[in-house]
């Protein structure tokens, strides 16, 4: 009975989420706000790590992602794919900004050599070790291990060969293992 109720609640949540996407596609900003509140928390850790621990930069990317999503929402054909589609937008923004050599924002309270994640970090050593990785290795590490993307998708997003993605992941893992030994 509990399993049935849980499955029913889950289905209802999915239906609500899809309805919000469709409403936002028709221009409903309140529906889009609900999508923001539902998905911002899912993007923030990924963006913070891709920004190497620069919280201000990660939050800029987060805003850019939702503004771009609003403009491109008409291109999304499957409401159920909104989460994955939004994640790709966010990754593209982060990677494009990096390729353009965007200067980091100044976060005066942060120590760039010891970034602190904006959530209760159970493994601060690992978070800081990831933040300290060379940029390409860090991006692949974050996208593969922490955002559940495969090497083919990472390669497409980063405009590299899948073999290069695998090599960067291997490098990232080696560096992390050495740093945390």
């Amino acid at each position: 009975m509990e399993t049935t109720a849980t499955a029913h609640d889950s289905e209802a949540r999915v239906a609500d989420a899809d309805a919000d996407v469709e409403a936002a596609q028709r221009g409903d900003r309140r529906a889009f706000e609900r999508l923001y509140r539902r998905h911002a928390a899912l993007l923030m850790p990924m963006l913070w790590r891709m920004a190497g621990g620069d919280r201000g930069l990660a939050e800029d990317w987060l805003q850019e992602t939702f503004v771009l999503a609003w403009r491109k929402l008409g291109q999304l054909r499957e409401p159920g794919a909104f989460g994955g589609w939004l994640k790709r937008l966010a990754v593209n923004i982060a990677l494009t900004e990096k390729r353009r050599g965007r200067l980091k924002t100044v976060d005066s309270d942060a120590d760039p050599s010891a970034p602190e994640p904006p959530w209760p970090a159970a493994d601060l050593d690992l978070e800081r070790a990831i933040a300290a990785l060379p940029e390409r290795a860090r991006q692949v590490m974050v996208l593969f291990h922490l955002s559940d993307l495969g090497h083919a998708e990472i390669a497409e997003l980063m405009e590299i060969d899948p073999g290069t993605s695998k090599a960067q992941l291997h490098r990232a893992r080696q560096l992390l293992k050495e740093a945390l030994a």
Partner: protein
Amino acid sequence: MTLDDRELDRRLAALTRESAPGADHWPTIERRIQAPRRWGLPVAASAAAALVLAVAALRVVGPGPEPNEATDLQAVVSAEARAMQASAPDETDVLRARSPEALMRAWSDNQSAIEEIEAALARDPGNPLLLEFLAEARLRQARLINSSLTLSTQARMTL
């Protein structure tokens, strides 16, 4: 000596994957998206969607409504379709498409609508409302072809 692979995987798996941003960015996002949405591409798609919605509404009623029901339903569906189409700007703006990709998407949406209507007609042959919708979808199809020909004189395009 380095960390064990399994231990690294265990620690990676335990990292936070969900955390709300420190500040509420919605007010800033809302200000930036305040500019009216440009309807560009989806107008043809929304008009096609209006047809699909109307067909779906007819399906709910079933294959053979009584004459009075058919008249009432026809009025409701026609009103609904007109309202949805009226909510979008002049379709010809979109059919003067800006890109082959936009035309392809509009074509695909219109084709889906035609297939839905034809399937409904197979169950309810001669339904006047469905026939009207099919005629409109075919007319839209012809306009899309015309738009693609216009576009191809400016740049190469293959449909």
